[in-house]
């Protein structure tokens, strides 16, 4: 069995197994150990690709190169640490009476199902399967968003379902158009026309008019899942109403995978059009999302909503960076994907503990975390400092790279970029300060919290900020060459 098969089969089998035993105490452990197997296999696979270059599976159905293997490893890693956090957290939720056994089983099974869908989306070579897996990721998470069965959560899940469903339907139409263009070029007799490797090899000959039409549909479709403004409405609702581990993986992983799909298609469209149309559209949408989300940060009253707007802001920034193109911006965007995933999932984990301490998600009711439970308070403080882009954390490094790239190619765009950074920073900190330092309300007690994943994530982000280890830098470098066509280092 190849490493790829292990990576994909582990979550699939885990999902099936947890359908039956997910509600037992052992369910949480199975969840963790499945994620551990997945992560181990993905790491070995990553090293393999790093040593031997891209690999194509025997049936040509899977393709692993530097770009997706690092996202596979990241997905498996965040999946693992979130599973470690989720075990005691969900137990606590059951004790609080917010969940029944059946729903816990559903939760565990769908958690693995979601990971499977995302790993499939990342590793598949067939752009049709990519679509199926992205839709699958929606379907597995939609019942998790409404897991608590409150009116708000059902509304959020419905919105998520409808908006993402219709959005991603656009992407399917875009995929059909790409297929159409490829058939015109390659002839209808072949059965491998929808494979990304084939498309990429022949991208230059695809009809530009059809591909630019396809790109519009793909951008709207996958852009809905990335959470680009004005298609973002589902995102804050889904993140704030679902259980916290779900918010962590949605924000840290799902958005990345959707952006990954966009970047893959951008590579095709760029090669066909020979203009930067796709890039300009991504820059526009990205910058709009970035600015609007940083303004909305100021208006939030729910802590998870606030951080989901921060996710929109960062996804906007990455979309902008990939649109900008060039080795420097691409390298920065890849780094930003990594550090954002790590930091944001750490923050959501901390926020989960914080809202269990305060018994609510309302920002004005969460007070005095550092006094009640220093670990959670500090975790939230450091996490927010990291996500706001303070040195020496990795987010600063990547944002600095992006700013440098912007200065180089289109300096006037640095103005809205810097303003956005400032506004977002102010938005986060005006809410953070009283939550962390204020006086705790009487009777507020610490909860059982496992801060290990948070510390691990933040330590990694700090490490990436201080010095990117050379193997990782070369890895990013390989992906940068793949995407932008030229080398940075």
């Amino acid at each position: 069995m190849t490493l790829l098969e292990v990576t994909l089969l582990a979550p699939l089998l885990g999902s099936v197994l947890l359908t039956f035993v997910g509600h037992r105490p052992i369910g949480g452990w199975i969840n963790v150990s499945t994620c551990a197997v997945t992560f181990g296999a993905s790491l070995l696979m990553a090293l393999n690709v790093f040593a031997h270059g891209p690999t194509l599976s025997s049936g040509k159905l899977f393709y692993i190169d530097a770009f997706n293997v690092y996202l596979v490893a990241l997905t498996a890693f965040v999946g693992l640490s979130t599973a470690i956090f989720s075990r005691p957290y969900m137990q606590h939720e059951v004790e609080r009476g917010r969940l029944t056994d059946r729903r816990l089983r559903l939760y565990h099974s769908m958690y693995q199902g979601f990971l499977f869908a995302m790993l499939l989306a990342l590793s598949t070579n067939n752009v049709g399967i990519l679509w199926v897996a992205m839709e699958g990721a929606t379907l597995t998470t939609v019942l998790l968003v409404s897991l608590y069965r409150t009116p708000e959560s059902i509304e959020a899940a419905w919105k998520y379902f409808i908006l993402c469903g219709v959005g991603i339907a656009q992407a399917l139409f875009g995929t059909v158009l790409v297929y159409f263009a490829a058939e015109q070029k390659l002839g209808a007799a072949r059965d491998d026309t929808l494979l990304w490797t084939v498309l990429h090899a022949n991208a230059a000959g695809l009809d530009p008019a059809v591909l630019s039409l396809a790109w519009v549909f793909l951008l709207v479709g996958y852009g809905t899942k990335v959470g680009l403004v004005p298609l973002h409405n589902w995102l804050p609702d889904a993140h704030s109403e679902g259980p916290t581990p779900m918010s962590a993986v949605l924000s840290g992983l799902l958005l990345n995978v959707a952006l990954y799909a966009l970047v893959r298609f951008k590579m095709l469209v760029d090669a066909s059009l020979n203009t930067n149309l796709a890039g300009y559209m991504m820059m526009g949408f990205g910058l709009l999302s970035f600015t609007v989300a940083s303004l909305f940060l100021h208006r939030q009253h729910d802590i998870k909503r606030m951080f989901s707007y921060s996710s929109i802001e960062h996804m906007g920034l990455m979309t902008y960076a990939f649109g900008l193109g060039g080795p420097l911006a691409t390298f920065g965007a890849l780094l930003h994907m990594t550090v954002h995933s790590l930091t944001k999932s750490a923050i959501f984990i901390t926020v989960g503990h914080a809202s269990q301490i305060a018994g609510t998600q309302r920002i004005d009711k969460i007070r005095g975390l550092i006094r009640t439970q220093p670990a959670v308070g500090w975790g939230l403080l450091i996490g927010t400092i990291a996500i706001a882009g303070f040195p020496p954390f990795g987010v600063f490094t990547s944002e600095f790279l992006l700013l440098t790239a912007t200065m180089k190619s289109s300096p006037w765009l640095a103005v809205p970029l810097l303003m956005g950074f400032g506004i977002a920073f102010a938005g986060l900190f005006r809410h953070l300060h009283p939550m962390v330092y204020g006086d705790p309300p009487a009777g507020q007690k610490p909860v059982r919290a496992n801060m290990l994943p948070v510390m691990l994530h933040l330590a990694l982000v700090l490490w990436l900020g201080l010095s990117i280890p050379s193997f990782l830098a070369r890895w990013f470098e390989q992906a940068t060459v793949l995407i932008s066509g030229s080398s940075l280092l």
Partner: protein
Amino acid sequence: MASGFRTFHVRNDVCGSKNNMDLTQLGLYDQAIIVFAALVLFTSFIMLAQARVIPLIYTFAWQGALLAVVTALVALVSNHPHLYISAALTVALKVFLIPWLLYRLAVRLNIRHDAETIKHPSLLLLGGAGLVIFSYYVALPIVRLSGLATRNTIAVSVAVVLVGMLLMIARKKAVAQVIGFMSIENGLFFSAVVSTYGMPLIVELGVAFDVLVAAILFGVFFFHMRESFDTLDVDQLNRLSEARETILSHEEAGAASSEERP
């Protein structure tokens, strides 16, 4: 009549299409494809104006059946046997299974006799007609390039997608929205069939699986919605908006109640 088709002929010449085709010179099956494609779009318009739940579900089933006929005809004309599988899948899923699921839900939720008032129905239909014209415009670059016999119906398939979206936007009932969602899916399948003779089978199976799961999940949602909101009116889903939250927070700041929000 003939002169109308003549313009088509001329345009094809101008565009330099691969095989010089005139609508009147098409084979019988090709003409049948065009007729049935038009009927698919026609069912979309019926759904747009149909206010009652059960006829809406039936119309959806009819759309699936017509789509299956088109697919089978395309399979026959183009000699693509795998399209027969797609057609069979469409019959199983979109003519029987999903309409049956929806019908059963309508019975169990006791909304069989529900009818919603559609605001400005004539405006809605005109909007749909506008979308059809727009989709001809959208499909221009594809049609220009395509040499397939079915290329005249590509724009129709785009129109089915767009009219499905209009249906979702215009309707307030959850059931109607689901029907709109599924008819968008129909349109996408349609576009794949007529523009590329269908996607590879593995992709089509995947998409069909997704659609089936989505239909089941929608059913689950109906019950949850009924439980929480006492209605299937999506207008009632209005708790989560930025403005509302601001109001709530002021109210809560006034009253010192510590309501636990999940």
